[in-house]
């Protein structure tokens, strides 16, 4: 190694060292553990693919995946549509009011997710919670949103959209600002209505940003943890809420690691989730490539 490069390596060394120890090594060791039965007390015992097959065959996994699928199918499109609506709304105001509404809509994003969950937990509370109080004014009997398997998932989705809409809105707004004004001029000269302008100018021009927001939204939805964990008042020994209606994969993984103390299974769980994310991202990029070719 020529010495003239040495200063460069010295400067990147702290970062790369930390990266190797706290990112690369855990991936490698996790891969090792995923083929072993291990509870931290005794030596790891090689079990082949047993951890993987046990997870894939377990009822909790099935339940968590089913919940996740339902959750994602609703929350990702609904969240992005809401964010897009908010972005268009903010963009339709000018100057002062545009800034005010942008700030307000963004506010929940700066609150920690754990806080959003705990505030909403009480909003949903039976009898004295704000939502049931308002329902009461209309003579609707109190609903136990977080303990009724018919409403739990939707209660989570509402919180989720409240938290994340502002985040996606800000990214979409930046995308909107990058659309050249003359495209709208041209569309208007051709007699396009406001709705047609959105359909034929805004949406196609926003496609790359929408792609990013969708992919990112999916990846974070797949790892949902804080909000359902706190909405259900979970702990490592009891989690997922009534009838596991709010059991999600990362919760299941954490329970296996820190409740059941099966670190091998938890490690395998992480790789199963990664495989799903990689597969999805690949599909998204493939679709995007096809779209670009047309």
């Amino acid at each position, binding site marked *: 190694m020529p010495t003239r490069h040495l200063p460069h390596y010295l400067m*990147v060394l702290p*970062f790369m060292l930390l990266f190797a120890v*706290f*990112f690369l090594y855990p991936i490698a060791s996790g891969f090792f553990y995923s083929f072993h039965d291990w509870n931290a007390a005794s030596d790891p015992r090689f079990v082949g693919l047993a951890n993987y097959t046990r997870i894939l065959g377990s009822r909790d996994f099935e339940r968590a995946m089913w919940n996740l699928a339902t959750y994602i199918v609703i929350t990702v499109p609904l969240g992005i549509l809401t964010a897009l609506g908010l972005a268009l709304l903010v963009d339709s105001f000018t100057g002062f009011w545009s800034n005010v509404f942008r700030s307000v*809509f963004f506010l929940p994003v700066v609150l920690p997710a*754990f806080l959003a969950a705990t505030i909403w937990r009480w909003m949903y509370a039976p*009898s*004295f919670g704000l939502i049931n*109080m308002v329902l009461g004014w209309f003579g609707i009997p109190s609903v136990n949103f977080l303990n009724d398997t018919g409403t739990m998932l939707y209660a989570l989705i509402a919180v989720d959209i409240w938290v994340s809409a502002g985040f996606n809105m800000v990214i979409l707004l930046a995308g909107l600002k990058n659309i050249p004004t003359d495209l709208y001029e041209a569309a208007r000269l051709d007699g396009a209505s406001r709705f047609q302008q959105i359909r034929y100018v805004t949406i196609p021009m926003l496609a790359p940003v929408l792609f990013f927001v969708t992919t990112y939204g999916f990846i974070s939805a797949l790892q949902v943890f804080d909000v359902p964990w706190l909405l259900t008042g979970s702990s490592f020994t009891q989690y997922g809420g009534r009838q596991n209606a709010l059991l999600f994969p990362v919760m299941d993984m954490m329970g296996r690691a820190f409740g059941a103390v099966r670190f091998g299974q938890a490690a395998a769980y992480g790789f199963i989730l*990664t495989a799903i994310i990689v597969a999805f991202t690949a599909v998204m990029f493939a679709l995007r490539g096809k779209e670009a070719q047309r």
Partner: protein
Amino acid sequence: MTLALDAATPRRRRMASVTYWDVLKWVIALSVTVVILFPIWWMINVVFAEPGTPVSINPRLLPTSLEAGWSKILMILRETEYLRAYYISVAYALLTIIGVLAVGSMAAFEFALFDFPGKRPLFGLVMLSLMVPTAVTIVPTYLLVADMGWLNTMQGLVVPGMASAFGLFLLVQFMKGIPHEMIEAARLDGAGHFQIYWHVVMPLAKNALVTLAILTFMRTWGNFMWPLIVAPNAQMYTVGQVVGLFNAPYSHHTVDVVMTANLLAAVPPLIFFLIFQRKIVEGIAMSGTKG
């Protein structure tokens, strides 16, 4: 500022008369504002209300008793472990910010401005890690930290989060824009490699560093999962964990006390938001549109 923005967007000023759409968008915008702000407003009202009054008499739509709110806040700070959790969370956030900025800026300086063998694969590897979900690393990282004897320690909380791939990405994006002539000029003046980093590039990157510091604060203050597993000892509880305990199903606290705990946890991010709103929004928009 208002005038300048108005002038820059003539396309929306074509009609002088108030249209159907103008009314509609105000109605929608104000309704959304209510939906977004109400949970936060309600939290404040529950805190600043006489405890025990039934909702039929006081629906908590407005703050009604400043005194009651203060006494709850003082009670929580004096009689629970909240203050220590505050101290831990602040230390956790500050140390993480310092660590992320220090190692991130040094690496970004090299990746953005110089060429050396192995640069591309190294940087590519770090960027690839942005695609790897936390789910896959969290349990093995916990096991490693436990192995090192770092459970329930500040270093256990902070050090594993210091090599932030996102932070590196943000800083590299920014530092790429620094003209090479400035570095050459400093070199001709006899500045060493580290001096160029510290005296030339760091001041120029101030904006990006501030943005990254704020985003790191938000992330750390809001991090619930990592402290939950790596610092399970009551002595090391962060604000997030304490808030979680106040809200636990068998917590013996009443709603208004729980809400006070929630409110106290919300204060630092809300203050940050009021001061740095523009920087936060820019940082997030940048990570989304250039990614």
